[in-house]
C-alpha cells in the first residue's frame, strides 16, 4: 500500500494544486471521484497554455499515485463536458484543511446517500424508526407507539421498509391478516406497469392493534402473501425494487418512489401519522428513509461506543449534504428532523448524562451550524447542550425484561396500557411532541 490511500487522496490533490497554482484555483474548480475512487480535477478557468495542462497533470499523477486518473488527471473550463460538471448540483463542498473543495462523488452502491434531503414536512406527518444495529427494541417501540396512538383514537399507517430483513409485518399482522402484496411488489410493479388506485387496498392489512373503540393500525408489510407463497421470487424482486425507475427519460429516485407510494395510500384513507420501519445500518436501503421522505427520523441506539461511532459516520456524511444545501442557499432544515433515541437505557444517571454529552458533541460537530462572527448569526441552527427541545436531546426507552418476548401479532392482549405505560410513557410523550412539531411545520406560514 504505497502512496496515498483513500483517506489521503483528496488532501493530496488539494495540496498539490494549491502549491503549484493557489488556493483560489482549488476552490473555483471541482474534484471528480469516480466509482473506483480515482480523482480527476476540473479547473474553474481555461488553461493558460498546454504547458500548464501538462505540468499540473504530471504533478497530480506523481502525487496521487494509484488515486490519479492517469488518462486525464486534469481538465479545464472549455474542455468538452467540463461545463456541466462545474455547475453540477450534486457537488459537495468538502472542507480540506482551511479551504473548501467541491467534490462530485460517483458511486455505484450508496448513491442514495447523495440525494438531496427533503425538508418539507408531510401531512400526515411521517416518522422513521431507524437503527444502525439490530436488537435495540426499535420494532417493539414502533408497535407500542402505534398501539398507544390507536388507543387514543388516532389512525396509524405502518410501512415496513426493512426490505432486506422484513419482520414488522410478522410482528404486527397475524398470517390471516397479511395483505396480498407488500412494499417490495409496489416498488417492482410501479417501475413497469404501474399500480392503479383501485388496487392499493390490496397492499394494506389491518393489524390486530386496531382498536374497536379507538383508532386503526394499518400495515403495509415488506412482503405480502404472494411473496410468502413464492419465496423464490423474493431476492429477484428485491434487486429490482431498489433501483431508480426511468419514466419518459427521467429517472425517479427510490426515495421519491417510496414517498409517492406513501402519499397515495394516505390520500386514500384518513391517517393521522405514518410510521416507517427502516433498514438498520448505513446501507443503500436506509438512505431514502433517512433523507428523502420528509419524515422525523428516530435514530435508535444504545449508549455503547459502537452506537456513537456509527452515528458519527452517518452524521459526517450528512454534514456534507448540509454544506451543499447551505452553499446553494437552502435552509437544510431536515437536520432538525433527526432525533436520537437512547434505547435500552439503564437507570444509571451518569450513563444518560454521558449519552446527552456525546449526542450534543456529534450534533454540534456535524449538523449544527458553525458559529461565525458575522451579523447574520441569529439565523444559525445552534442549540445549548441542555435544551430539551433541541434535536440532539434524546428520547429515552428504558431497558425492561418484560419486552423480551414481545409478540403483539400473536397476542394482542399483551398490549394493555398497563403493560407498557411505565416503561414507555416518557418516550411516547416525546414522540407526540415530535409529531406535533412536524405538523405545525407543515402549516403554511402559520
Amino acid at each position, binding site marked *: 500500500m504505497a502512496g496515498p490511500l483513500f483517506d489521503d487522496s483528496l488532501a493530496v490533490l488539494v495540496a498539490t494544486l494549491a502549491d503549484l497554482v493557489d488556493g483560489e484555483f482549488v476552490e473555483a474548480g471541482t474534484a471528480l471521484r469516480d466509482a473506483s475512487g480515482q480523482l480527476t480535477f476540473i479547473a474553474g478557468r481555461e488553461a493558460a497554455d498546454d504547458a500548464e495542462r501538462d505540468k499540473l497533470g504530471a504533478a497530480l499523477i506523481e502525487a496521487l499515485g494509484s488515486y490519479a486518473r492517469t488518462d486525464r488527471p486534469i481538465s479545464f473550463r472549455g474542455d468538452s463536458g467540463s461545463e456541466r460538471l462545474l455547475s453540477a448540483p450534486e457537488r459537495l463542498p468538502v472542507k480540506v484543511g482551511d479551504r473548501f473543495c467541491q467534490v462530485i462523488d460517483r458511486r455505484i452502491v450508496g448513491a442514495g446517500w447523495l440525494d438531496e434531503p427533503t425538508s418539507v414536512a408531510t401531512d400526515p406527518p411521517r416518522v422513521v424508526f431507524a437503527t444502525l444495529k439490530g436488537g435495540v427494541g426499535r420494532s417493539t417501540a414502533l408497535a407500542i407507539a402505534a398501539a398507544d396512538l390507536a388507543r387514543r*383514537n388516532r*389512525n396509524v399507517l405502518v410501512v415496513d421498509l426493512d426490505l432486506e430483513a422484513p419482520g414488522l409485518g410478522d410482528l404486527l399482522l397475524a398470517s*390471516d*391478516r397479511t395483505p396480498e402484496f407488500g412494499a417490495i411488489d409496489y416498488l417492482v410493479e410501479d417501475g413497469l406497469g404501474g399500480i392503479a*388506485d*383501485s*388496487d392499493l*387496498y390490496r397492499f394494506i392489512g*389491518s393489524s*390486530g392493534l*386496531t*382498536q*374497536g*373503540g*379507538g*383508532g*386503526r393500525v*394499518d400495515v403495509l408489510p415488506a412482503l405480502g402473501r404472494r411473496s410468502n407463497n413464492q419465496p423464490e421470487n423474493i431476492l429477484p424482486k428485491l434487486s429490482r425494487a431498489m433501483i431508480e425507475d426511468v419514466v419518459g427519460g427521467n429517472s425517479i429516485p427510490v426515495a421519491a418512489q417510496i414517498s409517492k407510494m406513501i402519499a397515495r395510500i394516505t390520500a*386514500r*384513507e*384518513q391517517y*393521522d401519522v405514518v410510521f416507517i420501519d427502516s433498514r438498520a445500518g448505513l446501507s443503500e436501503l436506509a438512505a431514502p428513509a433517512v433523507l428523502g421522505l420528509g419524515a422525523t427520523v428516530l435514530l435508535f441506539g444504545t449508549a455503547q461506543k459502537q452506537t456513537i461511532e456509527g452515528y458519527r459516520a452517518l452524521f459526517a456524511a450528512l454534514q456534507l449534504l448540509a454544506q451543499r444545501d447551505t452553499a446553494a442557499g437552502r435552509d437544510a432544515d431536515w437536520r432538525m428532523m433527526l432525533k436520537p433515541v437512547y434505547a435500552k437505557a439503564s437507570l444509571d444517571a451518569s450513563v444518560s448524562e454521558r449519552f446527552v454529552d456525546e449526542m450534543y458533541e456529534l450534533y454540534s460537530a456535524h449538523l449544527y451550524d458553525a458559529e461565525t462572527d458575522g451579523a447574520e448569526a441569529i439565523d444559525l441552527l445552534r442549540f445549548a447542550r441542555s435544551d430539551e427541545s433541541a434535536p440532539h436531546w434524546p428520547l429515552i426507552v428504558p431497558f425492561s425484561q418484560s419486552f423480551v418476548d414481545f409478540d403483539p401479532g400473536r397476542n394482542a392482549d399483551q398490549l394493555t396500557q398497563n403493560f407498557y405505560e411505565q416503561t414507555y410513557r416518557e418516550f411516547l410523550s416525546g414522540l407526540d411532541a415530535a409529531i406535533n412539531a412536524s405538523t405545525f411545520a407543515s402549516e403554511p406560514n402559520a
Partner: protein
Amino acid sequence: MNAIQPDFAVLRDAIAAFDPSPRVEPNATISVEEAFLPAGHRGVLDLRRQLVVGNRGMGKSFWTHALLSGDLRSRLAEVYKHPQLANADVVIGFNGSSKESPTAPTVDEITSLYAGGCDPDLIWRAVMIRIASRALPGKHSGSLDGIIASLGTDPNLYSRILSQADDESARTGKTLLVVFDALDRLGRDWESIRQLTRALLALAVGLQSFRAIRAKIFMRVDQFADQELFRFPDSSKIKNDHVDLFWRPAELYGLLLFELLRDPQASGPLKELAEREDAIAALPNTGAQIWSSEETQARIINGLAGEFMGSNKKRGRVYSWLPLHLSDAAQTCSPRIFLTAWKKAAEHYPAPAGRAVDHLGLQEGVRQASSSRLEELYEDYPWIQPALEALRRQFVPMEREQLFELWASERVVDRIREKAASDESRTPVKFLAGDEPSALLSSMRDVAVMEERANGKINVPDIYRVEAAILRKGGVAVPKRRG
C-alpha cells in the same frame, strides 16, 4: 379560593329536568347544538371502517342520523379531523323504515323480495345501483325488481354503474357513503336476517376497490357475535377493523357537563363551579369532548355530588363509583342511563346542602336507572326477561349447571319461543345453532347482561342484578335497607 358559591339549587333543578332522549326514530333529524361528540367515537366517521357495532343505547341510530345532517357532518369533519367527511354524499341504504324512499328499500320491500326467492346479493346490488345512478344519466330509479331483472340480463350492470359513479365522485372530490342501520328488521326470522346481512357485508368488502364509494353498516352486538354471519371469503377485511361503539366514563361525565352547559339557567352556576375548582378546561363548551385530565373533570363532579359515596373514602369515590355501578358486563354504560341516574338523584329528597346531589340520591339514581336499562334492553332483546326472571332471589356468581337447571325448571327456552310467536327475530340469533341453553347463555354474554368469571362461574353485573332481584353471594350478612 372559595369566595364564589355556585347556585346548587339551580344546578339541581337543571339535572332533575333532564329528558334523556329515547331511541332516535328513523328519519329523525339531529341539530348541531344538541350533539355531544365523544372522542372515542372518532372511528365511526372513518370512511375506511365500514362496520360499526354497538349495544342498545350506545348511539348507532344517533350516528346514522348525524351522518345524514349536512350541517352536523361539516362540524364532525372538523372536530374529528376527517376532512373527507365534509364532502361526503350520505344516503340511507336501509334503516328499517316503512316509509317509502327513492333510495332505501322499506322493510316490506326487502322481505317480499327475499321471500320471493331473490338472491340477497342481487337485492343489495340493486339497492346500490339505484343509489349510485342518481347522479348518472340513465334510468335505474324505479322499483328494485326492475333493476334485479336488468341484473339478470346484464351481469356487468353493477360494476359498470358503480365504476361510473366512482369516477364521477372522485372527479368532484366527493365520497358516496351509504348507511345501513336497524339490520334486525331485515326479516322476521334470523335465517333470512342472517342471509341478507351476510350478503350486505360481502358487498361492502367489494366496495374497497372503489375510491369514493363506501358503506357504513351499524350492527347490534348480538348479531356481530354470530359466527355464521362472517362465513364468506374475505370477511376478515370488514371484521378486522370494525368499530365498537361504547362510552368511557370521562365521556359520560363530559355529556353530563355538556347537558348542563346547554341549559341557559345552569350554565352560569356550572362555570362558577368549574372556576372555583380550577377546572374550566374540563367544560365541553363546544360539544366536542376536549382532552383534559380526568382529575380535572373529577373536581367538577366532586363539587356537584361530593367526593365520596358517604362520609369518607371507605365508601368509594363518586367519580369512579357511579360509572362502575351503572356498567354492564362489557364495562360500559349507555349515555341515557347515565343521565337517568343523575336525574333521579336530583329528584331525591331531601336536597343536600352545598352540592346539587348527594350519595343517597345517587344510590337511588342507580337503582332507578337499572330498571330503566332493563326496560330498554327488553325492547331489543325480549328473551332477556324470562332468562333473568328465572334467577329471582338466587345467588350469583353461580355454576353453569345450576343456571341451566334453573332455566330448565322455569321452562325459559320454551317461554322465549312462545313469547316470540311468529316473530323468530325475538329469540336469540344463536338459537339457530341448537343447544338452546348454551346459546342463551352465550347471547346473554354478548349483550353484556351476564359474564363468565375466570373460574367459570356465571355472574350478573349490579346494574341488572339489583332490579331483577338477584342476590350477590357475600360473607357478611347485612340487614336490608330498602323499604
